[in-house]
């Protein structure tokens, strides 16, 4: 039996203690990182609940249940942050990425607890792809809410839309990595390729001065 709550406490306590000593943006992003890890643990419980409710196996749960629960739960702290603290648009995307990074980190910890840490190459590939998929979803949600859908009540439509897109994007990744052969290779490769693409765009966009109307 894995006592994942204990692992969560071990990882998050030093980070939470550091909040007493750091200030400003560092404090905010460290807290969001911890919240992301906490959300990962909560989503494991929610996934298990639906697995039992629908009587499905692990593969079906990973493909159809986990993406829905995880993406919805990841959005909750971000929405709370946006609605209560009303941050500047430029602060939203890093906040979304922090929650996503926390989530991905703790997901990797869960994976290590279950499967061991013997195979370095596989863990490196898995860590990179799982991290990349959560960060990609974080970027999509953060950028969408901050810059594209920020018009009063219209923001609700855009936010739900971007959530739906992230759910299926995450589901495609889970579907590919649970398959065998070339599908799995594609699954592990495409998030990292997309992250590199976004990094390239980020370098390029300030040079061509993009401003949405």
């Amino acid at each position: 039996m894995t006592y994942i709550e204990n692992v969560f406490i071990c990882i998050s306590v030093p980070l939470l203690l550091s909040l007493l000593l750091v200030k400003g943006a560092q404090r905010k992003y460290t807290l969001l990182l911890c919240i992301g890890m906490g959300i990962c643990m909560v989503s494991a419980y929610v996934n298990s609940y639906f697995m039992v409710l629908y009587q499905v196996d692990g593969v079906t749960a990973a493909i159809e249940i986990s993406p829905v629960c995880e993406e919805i739960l990841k959005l909750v702290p971000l929405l709370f942050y946006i609605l209560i603290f009303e941050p500047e648009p430029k602060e939203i995307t890093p906040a979304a990425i922090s929650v996503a990074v926390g989530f991905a980190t703790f997901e990797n910890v869960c994976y290590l607890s279950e499967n061991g840490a013997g195979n370095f190459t596989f863990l490196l590939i898995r860590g990179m792809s799982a991290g990349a998929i959560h960060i990609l979803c974080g970027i999509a949600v953060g950028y969408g809410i901050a810059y594209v859908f920020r018009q009063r009540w219209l923001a609700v439509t855009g936010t739900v839309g971007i959530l739906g897109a992230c759910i299926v994007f995450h589901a495609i990744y889970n579907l590919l990595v649970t398959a065998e052969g070339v599908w799995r290779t594609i699954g592990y490769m495409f998030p990292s390729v997309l992250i590199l693409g976004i990094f390239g765009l980020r370098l390029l966009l300030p040079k061509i001065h993009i401003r949405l109307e």
Partner: protein
Amino acid sequence: MDNFEIYDNAFQTLSLMVMMIVSGAAGLKYSSRKLVVLACAYGSIMLGTLFYMLHLTIIGDIPRIFYVSEISWMAGYLFFLFLVTLRHEWKKATLQPVPAMLALGTVAASVHSEVMGNSVLMSLAFGATAGAIVYISSVRLRCARLSGTPAAAFDGMMIAVVILQILVYFVSEYISDFSTFNLYFAIDILFTISLCSLFWMIRREVRQP
């Protein structure tokens, strides 16, 4: 792999992926929020179809627990709703009866055809979104007719897209064999082409001073 449904889905996925890239690039080129939102809509529908196709290819069956593809298609229509609302100039909040009846008809047809699977909640959510799109688009068409200004082709095409989407599900209820080309695929291909045509209509609007 001798299943026409996979070829049809592959055609839809590829077409919409190309349109998403083209629309996104044009959105950045013209700094247009409308084109970026259209790219999001194309992306959502494309991802939903891609998931459905991959599930069919890898697992050999359609998703049956959570409606993941339907969530993504629904997201696509939310982006379309965002787009039509963004284009509409809100003046006085008066309910126009004819567009309202069309919208109610859309909701009823969506629920009757179980557009988003067996879940009534999903069909209702789609119906409400599609109904709102039809309402705003028909209000704009009516306003254009009454004021004598040329109607925007986008509004008409948006209504056509919603009707074709409902028709796809309506026809699918009467067809059991999806391995060969039939009426269902003809409507689905027409639906994909209609979706793709939205880009040129929005781009024309964006390029006009």
